[in-house]
């Protein structure tokens, strides 16, 4: 007997993994949420499990008394208590349903690897686009603001400067945004430092430098410095937000990082913007 959530993908993964295996599937009502999140939120819980077992009168359906739960249900289920209340022996299976056949073949024992949550490069890349979409509007507004500011100089506002210099800045800004959003998650293990905000800043600085070397080599110093700071700040914020998508960050750690990173990023953005605007006065 295998237990899962009533989230479609969870159910499908399980069903596919169990092809050719004789068993029952019990789907708990987790309001359509996957196993891990439902367990964290308390919908995949000891109480729900016991209640559902009673409702379907499982003890009448099967003669054995063994339940296999996904390991990631553990934040919500207390195995001892569930066993005591339901009369069914609760065993935690592997993290990923695809390992179930091997788990069963080994007499319901999981290898160390089956017990671990991974975060491989294709998984990191798969979650990347979402962050990009979520923040795209904000990023675009910031880029437009930069373009607008680029048009201002002692001579007043110049439409042609805004479109030439500002247009270039906007294009570079969006390019840096998209690249950072994809490369950040992808290169996560290799970016320096553990704090995501610092990883992001490092990546942003590298991207900004590359952009400057290619397109902005003639910019005055102040504009270059402002650009470096602004891009690094933006990517720092982007990667800080990526913590929510990973499988290896802890709430205490993120809280602590947000506490120092957010003020630093705000300062970076303010100084960068001011320098960017002032750079108009440096331009011939």
């Amino acid at each position, binding site marked *: 007997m295998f237990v899962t959530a009533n989230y479609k*993908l969870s159910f499908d993964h399980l069903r596919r993994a169990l092809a050719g295996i004789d068993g029952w599937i019990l789907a708990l009502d987790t309001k359509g949420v*996957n196993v891990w999140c439902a367990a964290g939120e308390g919908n995949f819980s000891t109480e729900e499990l016991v209640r559902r077992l009673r409702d379907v009168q499982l003890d009448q359906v099967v003669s054995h008394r063994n339940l296999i739960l996904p390991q990631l249900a*553990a934040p*919500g289920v207390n195995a001892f208590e569930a066993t005591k209340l339901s009369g069914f022996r609760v065993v935690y299976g592997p993290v*990923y349903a695809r390992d179930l056949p091997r788990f069963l073949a080994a007499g319901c024992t999981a290898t160390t690897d089956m017990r671990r949550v991974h975060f491989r490069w294709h998984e990191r890349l798969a979650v990347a686009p979402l962050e990009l979409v979520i923040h795209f509007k904000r990023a675009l507004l910031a880029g437009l603001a930069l373009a607008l500011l680029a048009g201002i100089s002692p001579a007043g506002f110049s439409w042609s400067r805004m479109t030439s210099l500002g247009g270039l800045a906007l294009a570079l800004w969006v390019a840096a945004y998209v690249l950072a959003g994809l490369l950040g998650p992808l290169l996560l293990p290799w970016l320096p430092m553990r704090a995501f905000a610092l990883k992001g800043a490092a990546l942003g600085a590298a991207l900004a430098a590359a952009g400057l070397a290619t397109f902005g080599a003639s910019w005055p110093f102040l504009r270059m410095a402002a650009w470096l700071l602004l891009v690094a700040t933006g990517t720092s914020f982007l990667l800080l937000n990526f913590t929510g998508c990973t499988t*290896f960050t*802890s709430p*205490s750690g*993120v809280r602590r990082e947000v506490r120092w990173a957010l003020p630093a990023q705000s300062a970076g953005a303010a100084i960068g913007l001011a320098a960017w605007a002032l750079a108009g006065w440096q331009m011939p």
Partner: protein
Amino acid sequence: MKYLSDQISLRLDAGRCIGCGLCETVCPHGVFLVQRGKAQIRDRDACIECGACARNCPVDAIAVDSGVGCAQAIINGLLTGQETCCGERSCCGAKPTEKRRAGLIP
């Protein structure tokens, strides 16, 4: 991959531990090692504070402040002075959805 060090709220009361081994079983990051009838914390910094070990320990030998690890929720929490929230419908609704799409969650 490791996150920040020395930030984890995980506590183990080895005196209470009866060595059942469940904490080692349920932890998705191999934080615990149970040897000769006692659990020990092998890799504290790997802990993500999911709460699975504490929930399943039969003698309440483990405590951990589990919660939402999503920066957006924490930022919102800091800005509004309210509890950080999680869930499908609220601020960080995107997080579980996207994790699922990526097949990170069974």
